[in-house]
């Protein structure tokens, strides 16, 4: 499970004016009652657009997120870890399929989403533009990136769009294995030899800033998403999710005798919240716009996979095939 740090566009001033006020009121009343929105229901164009964007970003993140871990399968220490990592990568690609299906019910085809990923038009979680240099990097990804994603996804599963909730329910069930597997791998290194401890500490140092970026820009910098929160598209603010992550995982990192590369990080007894140094948000913007260590490589690997499989798909395509938007 890899979705997180979704970037939302600010709704334009005139975007809502074209909507039928009565249908909009019924739609909002349904969400207010706690009923989910099914694909055949009327929905505002902005709701549809933002959901496609969010679910599609999540799906792309699963696919791209499988790349840094996938290349480590052959180097995983021991047969059991190879099996486990293979199962995890397989799960992530399966999650992508579930999420593409959910987004597809909103009217954008899977092929269009995959094309937009390859062309760079659609985004994916920024964290996968950073390299996994050592085995410890994959352990930190499996534990803490998945942990961050779980915080985000548990919130989203309470959202209003039924197919996305259904997909997330399945995804969350499989995800607990990833988190435990990652935690186990980090514990193994952190309680091991001095070399192993050093390796996992260095990996944590490398991943801390991307992990803080993971939940997206601070609320005071983010675009206004009130309407998306009212429609239960976005379920928690970036800062709230970041706080929840710190609350749950900083103590677990500390108990392993590891340090976190932020001397200002501590729980503020007065506010009950974590104080921390803001990560470099200029870097975040730069990387999300294509200038990260691995952006080009990730997309190139994905594009080549697409190209190499094309002859198989073309051989199987039939011109009479009748594509319709899937149901649920």
């Amino acid at each position, binding site marked *: 499970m890899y979705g997180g740090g979704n970037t939302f566009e600010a709704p334009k001033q005139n975007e809502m004016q074209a909507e039928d006020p009565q249908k909009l009121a019924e739609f909002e009343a349904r969400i207010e009652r706690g009923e989910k929105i099914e694909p055949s229901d009327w929905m505002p164009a902005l709701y549809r657009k933002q959901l496609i964007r969010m679910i599609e970003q999540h799906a792309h993140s699963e696919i791209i997120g499988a790349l840094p871990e996938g290349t480590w399968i052959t180097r995983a220490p021991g047969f059991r870890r190879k099996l486990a990592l293979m199962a995890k990568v397989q799960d992530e690609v399966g999650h992508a399929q579930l999420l593409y299906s959910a987004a597809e019910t909103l009217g954008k085809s899977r092929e269009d989403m995959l094309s937009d990923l390859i062309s760079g038009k659609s985004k994916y979680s920024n964290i996968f533009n950073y*390299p996994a240099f050592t085995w410890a990097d994959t352990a930190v990804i499996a534990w803490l990136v998945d942990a961050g994603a779980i915080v985000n996804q548990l919130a989203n599963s309470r959202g209003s769009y039924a197919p996305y909730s259904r997909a997330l329910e399945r995804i969350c069930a*499989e995800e607990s294995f990833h988190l435990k597997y990652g935690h186990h791998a980090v514990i193994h290194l952190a309680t091991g030899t001095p070399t192993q401890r050093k390796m996992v500490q260095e990996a944590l140092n490398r991943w801390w800033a991307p992990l803080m970026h993971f939940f997206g820009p601070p609320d005071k910098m983010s675009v206004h998403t009130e309407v998306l929160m009212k429609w239960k598209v976005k379920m928690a603010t970036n800062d709230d999710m970041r706080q929840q992550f710190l609350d749950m995982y900083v103590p677990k990192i500390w108990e392993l005798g590891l340090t976190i590369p932020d001397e200002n990080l501590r729980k503020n007894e007065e506010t009950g919240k974590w104080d921390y140094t803001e990560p470099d948000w200029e870097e975040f913007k730069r990387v999300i716009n294509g200038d990260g260590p691995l952006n080009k490589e990730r997309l190139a690997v994905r594009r080549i996979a697409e190209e190499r499989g094309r002859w198989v*798909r073309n051989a*199987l395509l039939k011109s009479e095939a009748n594509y319709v938007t899937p149901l649920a």
Partner: protein
Amino acid sequence: MTIQSLDPRVSRLGLTSLQNDDAEQATVNQFPTFQVFTQKKEDKPFEHGGIVHAPNIEMALIFAKEQYSRRFTCSGLAVAATTSVKTTDVSENKEDIYNLIQEPAVSSSEKEPYEIFHLNKRGKQTVYAGSVEAGSFEEAAWEAKKAFQNDKPVYNLWLIRRNDILFIDEEDKDIWATLGDKKYRDALDYKATDKIKAFKEEQNR
């Protein structure tokens, strides 16, 4: 151009772009979709799982096994082309969709089995309710109303001709035989507490 990666394992793959693909973009770029239904245990009803894209219904059944029963055993699996599923509107606020179904004007003499699925709550999966004999989708909906309407509201009906559904054969059910004993992908198999406790005790010594 061969990819030169920061990750030596990627570089070693020697991936090169084919660079000749734009010309051969097919006019059709989509496989049709199929709705997938899984039955987790013999005594449980079939339940909608999601969709797969596939070139035909036989391949759809294979993909469905990988996508929807990769992590647990099923006692049954079925797929139907999305185009063969007839649905009603989705009702809201405890309104029973069956209340909107009218008796069809004409009745056909030739009947065949239709499978009926209910959405019992918005946001939940559509589940199998039972089968009826009918000559058309309209008749099937009316027969379903007579057979399955009760005091619990149903929000949405799916109707599929049984002939349009592909079920997994009894003899093929050994596809699930490989699923047992893969403890390495089970969260319960990763025990951390003892190791952390031992580590802390050693630190404090």
